[in-house]
């Protein structure tokens, strides 16, 4: 199949898929779930012409990024542009933060950045080194997954009902990871 026809097919599937999701989520037609499912199916099906066009490596990137643009276009077209008055907010003098506020910010920074970095490195390191794959693949796994784990730990620490308990559990997990790494 010619390149242009594969592109046309992929774009048609993308636009149809996003349009069906739009119809399902905003118009709530009968069988909205089925309509949404077909929409997702079409978006998934775009991978086929993209893969055929440019191989699976490039094709996968097209398949996950082009729907974003199609949705952006639809959003732009259907946006509610009725201008409303916004209320002016009162102006205050900037208040110098007190020591408790500074301590809270510094504490959060230390938890999220240095502690999060160390904990995610140790935990991912231990998990990676335990994998039954070659040493090189273990290291690549650690380097690629560690940022994800760091981000998840940061979220976990900040969103936990008890920050103290969350930090302690991550510290314990890190300790376990460190012991594992040293034992290997």
């Amino acid at each position, binding site marked *: 199949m010619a390149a242009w026809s594969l592109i046309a097919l992929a774009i048609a599937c993308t636009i149809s898929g996003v349009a069906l999701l739009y119809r399902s989520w905003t118009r709530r037609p009968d069988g909205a779930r089925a309509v949404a499912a077909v929409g997702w199916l079409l978006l998934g099906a775009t991978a086929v012409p993209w893969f055929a066009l440019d191989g699976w490596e490039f094709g996968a*990137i097209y398949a996950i990024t082009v729907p*974003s643009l199609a949705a952006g276009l639809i959003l732009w077209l259907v946006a509610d542009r009725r*201008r409303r008055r916004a209320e002016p907010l009162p102006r205050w003098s900037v208040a110098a933060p007190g020591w408790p506020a500074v301590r809270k910010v510094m504490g*959060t920074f230390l938890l999220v950045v240095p502690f999060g970095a160390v904990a*995610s490195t140790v935990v991912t390191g231990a998990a990676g080194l335990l994998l039954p794959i070659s040493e*090189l693949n273990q290291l690549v796994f650690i380097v690629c997954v560690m940022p994800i784990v760091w981000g998840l730990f940061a979220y976990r620490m900040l969103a936990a009902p008890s920050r103290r308990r969350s930090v302690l559990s991550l510290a314990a997990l890190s300790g376990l990871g460190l012991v594992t790494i040293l034992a290997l």
Partner: protein
Amino acid sequence: MKLSLTPDLVKRSLAAHGWLGLLVGALMYIVCLTGTLSVFYPEFERWEQPGAPESLTYDVGAMGRALNDLLSRESLLTEHVYLNLPTEEIPRASVSNEERGWFVEADGSLGDPVVHDWTHFLIDTHLYLTLPETFGIVLVSALGALLVGLIVSGLFAHPRLFKDAFHLRLRGGGRLEQVDIHNRLSVWGFPFHLLIAVTGAYFGLVIPVLGVIADATGRDAEAIAASVFGEEPAIEAVGEVQLASILGDLSARAPEANPFALTVHGAGTERQFVEIHASYPQRMIYSENYRYDSAGTYLDKAGFSDGEVGKQIVYSMYYLHFGHFGGWAVKLIYGLLGLALTVISVTGVNIWLAKRRHRDALNDLWAGIVWGVPVALFVSATSQVALGFISPVLFWSVLALCVVWSLKRQDPVGVRRGLLLSWAAVIAALLTIHLFRFGTDAVGPAALAVNLGLILQLALVAYLLRGRPTESELPFGADKDEVLEAQANP
């Protein structure tokens, strides 16, 4: 459709999202904006020197003469010497050492020096925030990891993820508008943003993380690097680089490989060998690297195209992050989605500011940063084109001036307008100076795309100035609905 998220989880996720956002806000904005522009760095390089000789075809003999000419000049030798062959992205040949480079003329003589200082400054700002490289790249990569946290907390903070997916209220700058823009761009850009976060984090964290693991397990960090990039080969033949032999052998050995650059390692020493970087069609790897001695004897290849999966992943990070594959279409996709991430960074802070239900110096500070960064970036570009001068000090000084002015004026709406007009004035000056300095080359194939992009920026500024909010329609103010709701539910 509604995700089953408890109100408590949503509330805590929102708080975590706010904390993370404030932690990275301004730096994330600068990194995203410069990253978006960096997608087009080959175009910027050509635009900086639109008169440089361009051709997609080249004479191998001429390239070899240029490379050996540089290698024969002892005063110019550094550990590595490079030859860049013409490609569709940059149809220019150049040779360089670790400090400077020269274009290669058709006859193989060295031409004008390569001067891409603004483009390099732009990339440095994205990679290091102009800080010392070892610290800056780790800091920027940490932003990538925290972006993962922002993405996850953002998803959990949004219980009406699907129901609101097409709900966009553009109502003149109120908080609801900011919330809608932030949420819609975040949700629809989610796969791309996660990709950018993980690949961005990789570049700066690979060395410290591997260092920690190597130390903790008693492994040799150099051996780890060698397992990826190959050990230094034992060399027998040293002398002039026989480029024709090397490229001839490569063509026979790997007909699908498309060589685009060459590195001479240990230039001028007895350790000298040659590494050819070749791209593969439909492959995400940056290159497969073939190594030869100077006489053209094949040594080995790195195995990025067909070696262990880990090797292939490592060498795919660059294209995945910068979008330099698939031509213009991919660049446009990366540019638009990168711009979306930039807008998300800004609207996130805008939402936090509006939530406080008052204004103070933080609003002024933020307005100065948001609208000052593009002004500072293009003042530095103008300085480079007009005077050949570029410095991080200039960029940060202009930005500091914008911020100080904003703090002094205490009027974010007026500051936004003033800095938008300044941005437009700088772009107009840049276009005029570029045209004046380079004449017809400024509208030739090497510079036209960027200059059209600059004109598009003027249109963007005009759009942003259109329907300027008045004092009663403050950007980031409270929407009327919210005020009524707050009054009804005090």
